[in-house]
């Protein structure tokens, strides 16, 4: 009987997950196929042939390539900064016992998520102009940092939540200082949260356009902004080609990570340690 309930339960869950996975994967496949569309307008699916025109367009235009580097640089900077600050924030939140101040600070760190990116871009533009910095690299990086910080804080918090505080006590009872206990025990255990937070931060930053549009200058432009500018009036599948290229880039990075460090190591195994068989 119990086996039957288990089987039914698993089948139902499997079916449900299957449907959602189709929802997740199908549009992505669609964009992959459309990036090879030879037509110059959005026609019916599937495209009548294969053409590398959008890729050629992407690589031949030095604006796109320059914007790609700019985006990567800004994404790396803001993501690394967000990871550091986010981990600190999560650790700091852990130390607060009373519910009210913790919820308040929690809300504060989460609040950028509730402010539309347009507003963040606009507000930072005004704020930076008052302070005298103006638009550009610093401004965009700060905007992205603000936008991705909630993601990292959440991700690390969720990871830290399951770590028994007695582990810190155990480490300290063996002679470590608090700081050492945190660095050598807690953070490695929260590694998944930090890694996932970083992955998200990069993804969000590379795709961000609403805030960045306010903060670009003629010399500093991010890739999504350039693509959207070209797309505004015309139909342009260069964005699909850029998206596919971005994914190839990520795939390469992930493959390299897998060969060197082991992607499974990244998404470790929590308090029971690594039992991967590499």
């Amino acid at each position, binding site marked *: 009987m119990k086996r039957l309930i288990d089987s039914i339960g698993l089948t139902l869950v499997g079916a449900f997950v299957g449907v959602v996975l189709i929802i997740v994967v199908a549009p*992505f496949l669609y964009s992959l196929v459309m990036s090879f569309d030879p037509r110059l307008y959005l026609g019916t699916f599937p495209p009548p042939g294969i053409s590398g025109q959008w890729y050629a367009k992407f690589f031949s235009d030095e604006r796109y390539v320059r914007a790609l580097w700019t985006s990567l640089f800004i994404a790396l900077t803001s993501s690394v900064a967000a990871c550091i600050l986010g981990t600190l924030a999560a650790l700091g939140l852990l130390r607060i016992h009373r519910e009210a101040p913790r919820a308040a600070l929690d809300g504060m760190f*989460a*609040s950028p998520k509730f402010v*539309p990116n347009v507003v963040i871009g*606009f507000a930072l533009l005004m704020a930076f102009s008052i302070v005298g910095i103006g638009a550009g690299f610093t401004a965009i990086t700060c905007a992205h940092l603000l936008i991705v910080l*909630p993601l990292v804080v959440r991700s690390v918090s969720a990871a830290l939540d*399951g770590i028994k505080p007695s582990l810190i006590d155990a480490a300290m009872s063996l002679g470590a200082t608090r700081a050492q206990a945190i660095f050598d025990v807690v953070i490695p255990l929260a590694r998944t949260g930090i890694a996932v937070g970083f992955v998200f931060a990069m*993804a969000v930053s590379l795709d961000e356009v609403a805030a960045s549009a306010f903060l670009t200058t003629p010399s500093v432009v991010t890739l999504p902004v350039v693509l959207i500018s070209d797309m505004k009036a015309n139909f342009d599948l260069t964005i699909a080609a850029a998206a596919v290229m971005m994914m190839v880039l990520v795939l390469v990075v*992930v493959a390299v990570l897998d060969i060197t460090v082991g992607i499974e190591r990244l998404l470790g195994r*929590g308090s029971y340690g690594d039992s991967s068989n590499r």
Partner: protein
Amino acid sequence: MKTWRRINWPIMPPLIAVACLLVFPLMIVLSLSTRQVAPGQVGGIVGGYQLTLDNYLTFFHPAYLRYVTDTLWLSLIATTIAVLAAYPVAYWLAVAPSSWRRRLTIVALIVVLYASAVVKVYGVSIALGPMGLRGSIAEFWGVGMNNRLVTSTVVVVGLINFLTPIATLMMVAPFQQISPSLSAAAQSLGANRLTAHLTVIIPLCRAGISQVFMLVYAASVSAFVIPLVLGRGQVAFLSNLVYARFSEVADFPGGAALSILLLLITLCVTLGLGWIVGNPAAKWRGYRS
């Protein structure tokens, strides 16, 4: 020395960063929201600061309630489905032994995450368009093809597409802190796998899951491209209204007021939801140093 240790050092740097980068600009937005709109002029009355709440009051018109409901309710549905679907996958990723399937899933999730939101949305738009499955959806609901219900469904599907990878990857970490032997122990005591899972594992991760739920919900509420393209103008989120004011019409005070309202509403709702989902687990948190 003791007071030195009592100060919450870790939280200082991020707190200062958020204060400078968010609070200060938000003050500007707040002050802007109280200015009179002079149509055709940028940002309000030039010279002469007139405090007014008009920009806020315009949004208390009943029609705007629908935008609020659309934003909050559709996001709730999408978030629930996304988190429910992400749960088994995340759990599997957390406890399964290393295998090519596990690696492939992780890689696939990360890659899908990096696909441009705009392109994915067009994918959904075509797949669920009049040339695609839109007719079937309309039949399912028993209404015409242009009915709001059909459009809302398409928006929800688009949101699910966007939210599920986020939810999946985020939920792996909370599951990793649970010892797998707990489930085995429960089963050895006579529970089937399902009961063991429901009664033992879920309560332990409730806090972590609720955190993920809140974040995914927030991401959904602030979604912009998805309701813009898939909503076809019938279904719009509050973020779309804000964008129109900031980027198209130059009604900065109005946009500022709406953003403040949006911030307040969604902060309340999300924290409320988080409290409902997660608070009972506070008892399990135990001692924190």
